[in-house]
C-alpha cells in the first residue's frame, strides 16, 4: 500500500521546514488548486471505480455552491481553497524491510497514542512513513483479525476489496452534502480506516489508527467508516499528532459509525495536532465531522475525546439514536492553551423510543485561548421515554482565556427527561496551596487538579490510553501558570 497523503495549506511560508528530513521525501502532487480535474486526478491515482468518482464529483459540484460555516466561536483569516494542494503522495512505497526497522517506534506509537512532545520529534524522524501508511496496522494484526472475520484496512483498500460494503454505507451517516467541510472531504478524501465487525463478533483487540500530518504535503482528509453488525462490539482508538510548522494546515476528516441491533462501538480519540506556537502562529485547523448512527435496536455508540491540539477545533461527534433503546455517549476533555480556539461538543438526536444519552464535557482554558462547548439534545415527537443527562464543566486558568457554553435543548415529547448542568470555575488557590505544601510543584499541582477535574472522562478511555492522556493534560498546560 502506498502512503497517500493530501494536504491543504495556506500558501505562504511553505518553504520553511522545521525538520530537514522532509525534503528527502520525493512526492507527487496534483496541480495547485481544486477543480474537477483535481478530483479526477485523485480518483485515478487511487484507481477507483466509476461510481466513486461520480460520487466525488457530485460532492465537488455541491461544494462549489456552499459557503464556509461561520457560526462557531472561532476566528481565523479566510482560507484560500484554491491556493493549496489537494493531493500529494510519496513516490516511494515503504518496503517491508524498512517497516521492520521502524517497528519498535511504531509499537511505541500504538502504546502511546497521545505522544509527549519530545517523542513527537523522534517519531517524526523515522517512523512517519510507516505511520502514515495504515498498512502497518493491518499487517500487525491481520491474521488475528481475519480469524474473527473482522475487516480492518485502509479505506482505499476497502473500496477495492469490499466495494459492496463501502457502497452501502459510505455517506449513509454523513451525506456528502452534509456541511461545507464534509462535502469537501467527500470530494477529495483518500486515506482513513475501514472497519467491519461481522454479526455477533466481539472484536478481539482494540483497533487503532494513528493519524499524522507530517509535512506540508501530508495534510489530512481522511475518511473513516466503521460498521458494527448485529450484536458485535468494537473499540477503536484514534491518535493524531502533527509537527510544528508556521503555516496553518487543514484537517477535514469525516468519520461515520453505524451500529446495528445490539451492537456497540466505542470510539476514542486523542487529538494532539500541532496547536500553533504561543503567538498563535501555525497549527492545524481541525474541521471534522464525526457522526454515529445507532441504527439498530439496543445499539450503543460512545465517543470519548481528549482534545489538546490544533489551532482551531471545530468538531461535534454526534449520535443519531434511531433504534429503540439505543444509547449515545459523549465524553470529552478539551484543553486549550496559548491562542488555541476550540468549538466542540456533540449532538444527540433522539428518534427512537427509550433512547438514552449522556454527555460529560470538561473544558479547560488557559493562556489566551477560547474554549466553547456547543451541544444539541433533540427529542423528536415519537421518541418516547428519552433520557438525557448533560454535565458541562469549564475550568479557567488565568484571566486572559475564555470559556463558553452553548447548549441547545429541544424536545417535542413530554415523556422525555432532560437534565443539563454547567459550571464554570477556576482552580482554587487553597487547593493549589495544599498540593504545594505537600511538595508538589505548581505545574504538577495544576496538572493533578485538572486531571481530577477530568476524571469522569479519563475513566472512559482504555487503560494505557488513559495514562497517556493524563500526561498529555499536564503537557498541554505547560506554561499556563506562574
Amino acid at each position, binding site marked *: 500500500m502506498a502512503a497517500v497523503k493530501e494536504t491543504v495549506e495556506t500558501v505562504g511560508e511553505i518553504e520553511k521546514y522545521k525538520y530537514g528530513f522532509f525534503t528527502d521525501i520525493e512526492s507527487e502532487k496534483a496541480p495547485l488548486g481544486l477543480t474537477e480535474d483535481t478530483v479526477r486526478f485523485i480518483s485515478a491515482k487511487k484507481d477507483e471505480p466509476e461510481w466513486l468518482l461520480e460520487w466525488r464529483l457530485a460532492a465537488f459540484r455541491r461544494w462549489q455552491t456552499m459557503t464556509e460555516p461561520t457560526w462557531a466561536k472561532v476566528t481565523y483569516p479566510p482560507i484560500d481553497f484554491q491556493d493549496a494542494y489537494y493531493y500529494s503522495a510519496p513516490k516511494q512505497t515503504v518496503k517491508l524491510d524498512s517497516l521492520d526497522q521502524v517497528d519498535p517506534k511504531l509499537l511505541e506509537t500504538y502504546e502511546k497514542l497521545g505522544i509527549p512532545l519530545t517523542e513527537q520529534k523522534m517519531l517524526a524522524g523515522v517512523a512517519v512513513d510507516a505511520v502514515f501508511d495504515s498498512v502497518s496496522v493491518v499487517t500487525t494484526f491481520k491474521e488475528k483479525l481475519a480469524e474473527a472475520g473482522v475487516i480492518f484496512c485502509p479505506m482505499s483498500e476497502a473500496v477495492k476489496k469490499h466495494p459492496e460494503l463501502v457502497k452501502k454505507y459510505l455517506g449513509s451517516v454523513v451525506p456528502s452534502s452534509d456541511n461545507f467541510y464534509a462535502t469537501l472531504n467527500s470530494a477529495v478524501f483518500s486515506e482513513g480506516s475501514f472497519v467491519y465487525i461481522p454479526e455477533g463478533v466481539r472484536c478481539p483487540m482494540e483497533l487503532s489508527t494513528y493519524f499524522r500530518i507530517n509535512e506540508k504535503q501530508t495534510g489530512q482528509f481522511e475518511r473513516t467508516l466503521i460498521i458494527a453488525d448485529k450484536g458485535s462490539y468494537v473499540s477503536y482508538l484514534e491518535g493524531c499528532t502533527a509537527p510544528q510548522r508556521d503555516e496553518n494546515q487543514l484537517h477535514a476528516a469525516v468519520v461515520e459509525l453505524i451500529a446495528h441491533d445490539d451492537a456497540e462501538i466505542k470510539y476514542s480519540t486523542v487529538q494532539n495536532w500541532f496547536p500553533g506556537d504561543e503567538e498563535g502562529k501555525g497549527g492545524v485547523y481541525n474541521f471534522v465531522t464525526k457522526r454515529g448512527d445507532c441504527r439498530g435496536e439496543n445499539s450503543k455508540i460512545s465517543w470519548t475525546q481528549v482534545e489538546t491540539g490544533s489551532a482551531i477545533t471545530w468538531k461535534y461527534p454526534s449520535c443519531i439514536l434511531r433504534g429503540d433503546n439505543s444509547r449515545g455517549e459523549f465524553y470529552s476533555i478539551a484543553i486549550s492553551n496559548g491562542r488555541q480556539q476550540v468549538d466542540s461538543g456533540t449532538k444527540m438526536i433522539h428518534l427512537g423510543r427509550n433512547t438514552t444519552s449522556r454527555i460529560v464535557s470538561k473544558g479547560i482554558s488557559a493562556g489566551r485561548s477560547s474554549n466553547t462547548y456547543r451541544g444539541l439534545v433533540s427529542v423528536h415527537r415519537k421518541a418516547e421515554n428519552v433520557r438525557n443527562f448533560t454535565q458541562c464543566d469549564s475550568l479557567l486558568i488565568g484571566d486572559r482565556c475564555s470559556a463558553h457554553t452553548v447548549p441547545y435543548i429541544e424536545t417535542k415529547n413530554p415523556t422525555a427527561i432532560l437534565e443539563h448542568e454547567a459550571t464554570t470555575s477556576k482552580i*482554587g*488557590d*487553597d*487547593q493549589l*496551596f*495544599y*498540593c*504545594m*505544601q*505537600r*511538595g*508538589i*510543584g*505548581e505545574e*504538577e*499541582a495544576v496538572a*493533578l*487538579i485538572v*486531571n*481530577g*477535574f*477530568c*476524571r*469522569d472522562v479519563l475513566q472512559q478511555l482504555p487503560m494505557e490510553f488513559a495514562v497517556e492522556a493524563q500526561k498529555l493534560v499536564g503537557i498541554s498546560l505547560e506554561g499556563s501558570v506562574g
Partner: protein
Amino acid sequence: MLEIRNLHVTVGGKEILKGIDLDIRAGEVHAIMGPNGSGKSTLSYVLAGRDGYVVTEGSIRFKGKDLLEMNVDERAAAGVFLAFQYPLEIPGVTTMTFLKTALNAQRRARGEEELDAVRFLKLVREKSRPLNVSDDMLKRSLNVGYSGGEKKRAEVLQMSLLEPVLAVLDETDSGLDIDALKTVAEGVNALRSPERAMVVITHYQRLLDYIVPDVVHVLSQGRIVKTGGKDLALELEKSGYAEYGADAA
C-alpha cells in the same frame, strides 16, 4: 532547627502576628495553645508559605536557611509539613494518586529515586494500617466526602508517609473521637525521633496526655505570652486564658 525572630505578619492588611520569637530544636515537641483567633493557624500558614500572609518584620530560619526565601513546595521538600486545620478537598484526584504524586515530587526535589507503583503501594499499606485508613478511603477522591475525623487521619497518614523534618499539626485532634484520638497520637508518637521536631496546635490538654510536649506556649493576640513545661497545659485547662488578657472570642 527552627528559629523565629520578632515575626510580624499581616493578613488582609491587618496585623495578626505581632512579634513572635520561637526556637525549636531537633527532637523537641512544642505545643501551642491559645484562644480562638489568636494567630495559631496564621503562624502555621506562614511557616508553610501561604500567599497573602505578609511578613512585615522578622525572620524565620529553618535548618540554617532562610525559610522565607523558599516557595511552598521547596519548603515541603525541605521537610516542612503542615497538617491543615481544614484539609482541602480535591475532586477527582484519589488519595492514592495524591500521596504518590506528593511523595515522588519530594523525592525528586531531594534528588532521590522515585518509588514505583509496587513499592509505593507497599509503603502506603504499611503506613495506613495503623491509622485505620481503609483501602476504600485511599481510592476515593482526596478528602471528598470524608468525615471530619477521617480527614484528620488522612492528614496524619500523609505526614507519616512524607516523613517531614518539622511537622506542624494544626488542631489535628479536633473532631476526633476518643479512639481516633489515640490512633492519631500513636501515629504522631511513632514519628517522634531525635532528628524531627513537631509543633502541635491544640485547644485541649487531652491530646497532650498522649503526645507529651517538651514545651508549651501560649499564644494570645499575636504574641507568645507564656512558655512553660507540660504542666502549663494543665494549668490552662483549669484557669482558661483570662489572665493572658484575652477574651475567649
